[in-house]
């Protein structure tokens, strides 16, 4: 177990190093200048030079990469040249919003997906099951930005039950939650589909196993048994999906954050790419990559605990 974790940590470090090298090289090739992008005609040559020096763009890629890592090890990702704010602070400001959005959507997915899956498994091959199967696939396949746009059409133009734009007024928890509901629902849809299908499959598998038939004949109450089994069996795939979901956090939130104008990791990196704000792009990418790798590791470990049949280190993802 320990050596497994060590191995994962080493490969995590390698992934991060490679990512930063990749990004640093890219920054040297990508056309576009941060000073000009933001200032347009106001960017004087002196100003451009100053911003380049502050961003460290005048150094060689090698110097940039080593410098970045030395600082990163101290928890310092650099400073945003334009506002003078530490990049770690910028990230910490928006990270919770993305995390809350993801968590809320996964919670919604659990609340909706598991009951749907149980229903399908207990009514296999009925019309209800068929409809749910199609619904699940549609949920999984329809792109999140299409759902987001449609919801924007519905809730902002016609049906004004939920506010959908922005985070809500700050310091107002209730307002924050109200603003969270629709974006979280949009993000949750595909996970609802996944969960419903996973729960159905794993549950049907158990139901077909013979020992249940045996126990049934011994007269144990049908329903109690079913639900105990159902929940227990739903747990493992759920945890796996939750792990993947948390890890893929950013992939989902980019569009939802843009369409609903929410601050978050997605909007932060998009804006940084557009403005050519290289230090911010690097810092945010590093955090995203770290987050992804650790979420996966965590999901793996929890999975092993839950299901002794899986041996750690042998799962290949």
């Amino acid at each position, binding site marked *: 177990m320990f050596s497994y974790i060590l191995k994962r940590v080493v490969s995590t470090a390698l992934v991060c190093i490679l990512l930063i090298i990749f990004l640093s090289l*890219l920054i040297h090739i990508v056309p576009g200048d941060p000073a000009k992008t933001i200032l347009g005609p106001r960017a004087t040559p002196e100003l451009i030079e100053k911003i380049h020096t502050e961003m460290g763009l005048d150094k060689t890629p090698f110097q940039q990469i080593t410098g970045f890592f030395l600082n990163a090890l101290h928890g310092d990702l650099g400073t945003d040249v334009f506002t003078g704010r530490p990049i770690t602070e910028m990230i910490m400001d928006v990270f919770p919003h993305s995390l809350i959005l993801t968590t809320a959507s996964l919670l919604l997915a659990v609340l909706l997906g598991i009951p749907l899956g149980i229903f399908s498994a207990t009514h296999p091959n009925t019309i209800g099951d068929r409809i749910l199967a199609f619904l699940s696939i*549609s949920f999984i396949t329809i*792109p999140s930005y299409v759902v987001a746009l449609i919801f924007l059409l519905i809730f902002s133009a016609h049906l004004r039950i939920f506010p959908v734009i922005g985070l809500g007024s700050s310091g107002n928890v209730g307002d924050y939650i109200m603003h969270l509901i629709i974006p979280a629902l949009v993000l949750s849809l595909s996970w609802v589909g996944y969960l419903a299908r996973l729960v159905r499959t794993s549950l049907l598998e158990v139901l077909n196993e013979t020992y249940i038939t045996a126990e049934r004949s011994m007269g144990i109450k049908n329903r109690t048994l079913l639900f105990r089994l159902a929940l227990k069996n739903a747990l493992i795939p759920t945890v796996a999906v939750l792990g993947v979901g948390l890890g893929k956090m950013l992939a989902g939130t980019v*569009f939802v954050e843009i369409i609903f104008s929410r601050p978050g990791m997605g909007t932060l990196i998009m804006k940084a790419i557009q403005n050519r704000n290289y230090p911010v792009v690097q810092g945010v990418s590093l955090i*995203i990559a770290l987050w992804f790798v650790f979420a996966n590791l965590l999901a793996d470990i929890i999975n092993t605990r839950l299901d002794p049949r899986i041996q750690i280190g042998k799962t290949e993802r």
Partner: protein
Amino acid sequence: MRKKKNSEIGVLSQLVKTPSGLIGTIIIALLLITAIFAPILSPYDFSTQNISERLSGPTSEHHLGTDHLGRDLLSRIIYGTRIALKVAIPAVIISLFIGVLLGLIAGYFGGIIDYIIIIILDTIQSLPSIVLALVMLTLLGPSLTNLIVVMGLTLFPGYSRVVRAQVMSARQELYVDAEKALGAKPLRIIAGHILPNVVPAVIILSTMDLPAVITIEAGLSFLGMGVRPPSPSWGVILNDGFSHFRQSPWPIITAGAALAITTFGFTLFGESLRDILDPKMSGMDS
């Protein structure tokens, strides 16, 4: 082996026996027909503007309404099918080629080569594909070709992993080692024994990848990094619609529906194909 039994016609006839396979096949057939016969099917040229009739809802002249330049939405959606397939199919082929190659190398040689490849795959996958594609497109500049290349480069790790796993399990089997001992060249072993085992999984994966590529392409176009105007990518139509959604919901509704139906059809098709080609893989989504 299994694949011998499944001639192409056999697979197809099995496919249409299940409801989901049938629906998937019909949707894909319709898409292909739409793409091929786009000039015949579309009532107008997709780029002809008529500013005075902009942003109208469905009328008898424009069955799905018009966009902000007064172009016929139905014609644009129809031509959009071409763009979706034009990007998705080559992109999947590129990622398939790179992915299979790297997967074979990693699985066959193992050891340090395998480790290096895995780290590269991890790195690519540690950033969401949309962000990675965005960064690379910024470098290359948006165009149809670049879009295809970037998508290919973003998505190949999936293939590598599947192929690598298959190769590893094939390697466990005795005959490969036996041939090795007999001095067969690696290429021969790969071509003769490993590749055939990998084919069904790769076919399934690439069918399932098509809707993913279409989704990302439209997403990038939605963010303004896709094909050049006036090419009617569904993502471009969505983007234009987003700017004018208070005046007319039709661009969003139509392009959204086109995307939803397409991804739905490909997924149904892919899953049914998987159930037929490789029942072991069913239930292993996510």
